């Protein structure tokens, strides 16, 4: 693990170049360029506001529903874009992979990091709106960077794992599309936890709450929405919400490292076609 971190550090200029490449390829040609990273979350927030607040008039106890929704949708779309972008990244960048001998996992990691860079503006918008509407930020906001890094590590770990597997099993991409949609509905993004508690049996609910993304999204909310923590029901303690993702991150990192090391020498053989 430490050697991997060392390796990433020693090839940091390559990682930087790959991220820059990703962003440049994405934003150098549109007329508005990187401004889209600010514009599209704004537009998305506008659409959600009109649909859920003005038309459907949905309300929940924990927080204003609009903020509740946004604080889940933005991190989720970062997660989804990263995974879907990185799963094909080794194959898409096969001409780079076949050019030289370098740590190949840097490519999916760079896709995740590039998506993180794009995610930052929407996060900023979210923080500002939340601070304005709820008149301030919670105390836990100070730990927000740690939460963000945790999310990043899980995403990067999954990205490396999936991208390596995809080189061998190209069905993975289609499978993932379905799984990600399912996972989104298994996470309290559009509904509150109490709703689930009410409709699921206790056993089923325990299974449900062990989904690490329940924890991740709620950690985002705890850190961003003032007063959200107090509203949390006692069956969803912060301990459960925090340790669930933490353990998951460690497991994912170990699995992806093992899979990568085993597949490393074969990646190039399968990339030929």
């Amino acid at each position: 693990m430490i050697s991997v971190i060392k390796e990433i550090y020693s090839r940091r200029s390559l990682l930087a170049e790959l991220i820059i490449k990703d962003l440049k390829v994405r934003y150098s040609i549109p007329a508005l360029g990187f401004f889209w990273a600010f514009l599209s979350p704004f537009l998305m927030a506008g659409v959600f506001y009109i649909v859920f607040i003005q038309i459907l008039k949905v309300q929940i106890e924990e927080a204003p529903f609009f903020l509740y929704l946004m604080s889940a949708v933005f991190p989720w779309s970062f997660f989804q874009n990263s995974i879907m972008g990185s799963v094909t990244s080794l194959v898409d960048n096969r001409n780079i992979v076949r050019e030289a001998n370098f740590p190949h996992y840097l490519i999916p990691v760079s896709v995740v990091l590039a998506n993180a860079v794009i995610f930052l503006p929407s996060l900023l918008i979210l923080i500002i709106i939340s601070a304005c509407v709820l008149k301030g930020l919670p105390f836990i906001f100070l730990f927000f960077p740690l939460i963000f890094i945790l999310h990043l590590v899980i995403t990067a770990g999954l990205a490396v794992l999936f991208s390596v597997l995809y080189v061998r099993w190209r069905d993975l991409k289609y499978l993932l599309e379905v799984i990600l949609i399912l996972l989104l509905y298994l996470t309290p993004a559009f509904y509150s936890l109490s709703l689930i508690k009410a409709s699921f049996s206790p056993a089923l609910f325990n299974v449900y709450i062990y989904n690490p993304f329940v924890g991740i999204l709620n950690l985002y909310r705890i850190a961003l929405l003032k007063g959200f923590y107090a509203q949390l029901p006692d069956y969803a303690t912060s301990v459960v919400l925090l340790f669930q993702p933490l353990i998951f991150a460690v497991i994912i990192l170990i699995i992806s490292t093992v899979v990568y090391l085993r597949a490393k020498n074969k990646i190039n053989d399968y990339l030929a076609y």
Partner: protein
Amino acid sequence: MKGVGKKYPRVKNTNGAFNDFWPLEGIFLSVKKGEIIGIIGRNGAGKTTLLNIIAGVVAPTKGEICINGRIKGLFNLGAGFQDELSGRENIFLNGAILGETKEELKDKLAAIIEFSELGEFIDMPLGTYSQGMRLRLGFSIVANLNFDILVIDEILAVGDILFQNKCFEKITDFKRQGKTLIITNQSAELVARLCDKAVLLDHGKLLFAGDVKEAVEKYRALLNKEQFFVGPAKASAALVEDTKKWADDRPNWGKILGTKEVVLEKVSFLGRYGRHSSAVKSGKRLRINVHFKARNNLKEPHFGVAIFRNDGVYCYGPNTAFDGYKMSRIQPGSGQFSLEYDKILLAPGGYRVSVAIWDKGETLPFIHHYAYYNLTVAGYKNINNELINIPFRFRPRHNFFGFSFFGKKFIPDLSVLSDKWGKKIEGINLIIGSFRIANLQNEEKQVFMTGSAVKFTAGLNKLPTGRKSYYCWLGIYRADGILCQGFSGAFCHKDKTIDFIFPRLGLLPGGYKVSVCVWNSKKELLAAHHGVYSFKTVFNKNDHGTVFLEHKWGLNGYE
């Protein structure tokens, strides 16, 4: 860095899960530091796979590779390049992939861009680049980075001759710096020229490793066996007809080509009195002295000096190999050679001189100063842009003394002939009745040996009487229409036959056309047979150019 890069690989590569395919099997190979290794073999022999494995891009299924030092590879053209990014951004991306830090790349950026000669295109998106430009960029990046071992796949073929030359120059530089190179190329000659050792692969098996010559011979044998015929090295035939090729090459004049394993330190021209001068008199002595300094050991070199007319017509290019000298090697250090023409039989005008030291097969010169030096030939006014100035005797039959009465050289205006090529125009009271090309024994012939004596005889009919003088003009053209020389003399009405006698017609092998025209003293054209007659020349040795000039090499101290 370290001494020896060694590999003892035994290599397998699975391709697909269902059928195991072994592009390479059981290869054992060791490479020493500072060697250039050429890998040859047919398409699909496993060359690229081997290079990939050596560079660490592909892992061997079986066996292992031991490498001391940093290794860099240059494989598929434009691989690792992003079409959306500009050339400059690609330098950073590609360099980072090859393991360089941004700071190092910033230092080398100027050198890379300069070497690639891409100029302002460096800031254009790579998608707009041609294959050749991609190659330039790719090679420039790799060549300017730090490495101990460089692996280059068969891609240099895309570059133009000049860039290839630059690459080969760089490659020999690397060798001098003690770096190890492993290259593949389809051209066996090139491999033989550049490499210290060659490896012949076929169907994934190592057939031969070792001496380059032997490997190339085995490769040729292999190709011939499989019913692909690879002919012998192209003979230097039909140069006379290749005017366009040489003329089209003029933009490259003045360039210094080759691997530059030897430097020409001084090239000087000496005129008839032994004075240094870049202007010599037509028909007089010319001596060319060349001082050089060899940086490497040159295997089987030969010297060449070529003269071009300013418009690209190849006049004469003798070399020591054609003239039968054999040199086994030149040791590093200073040396010199000279070439002396007793009579420089070129028509007055501007010329350019190439000086080269070639390798055995003339695949890639050690040094080639291509049409680098200016040479002016002075003499009479060369109005009709003639190429050569061969001595001849003009002999109207009537004239007992065998030379012209009117010593003045008659130079007709040839523009009136411009639309009459291949036509016979007869005058009202003058007809060119007959024309013979014969040797001095008066035997009519079509083919002459270069340098043999030739007599052209024109028979005139219906010549008007009266005390008037006429001029007969004989033009010898190359088959492609380049005027070699016009020969003229005056005669009077009593002369019914006129001879032009060339004691030594030193025209190099090729087809030639002859025009014969008669003019009066007011320079009006009376009759013309323009480009109607033809003859050929053959020669018992190889030589380049149009005209054979007697010459002597000064090669003191070479075996």
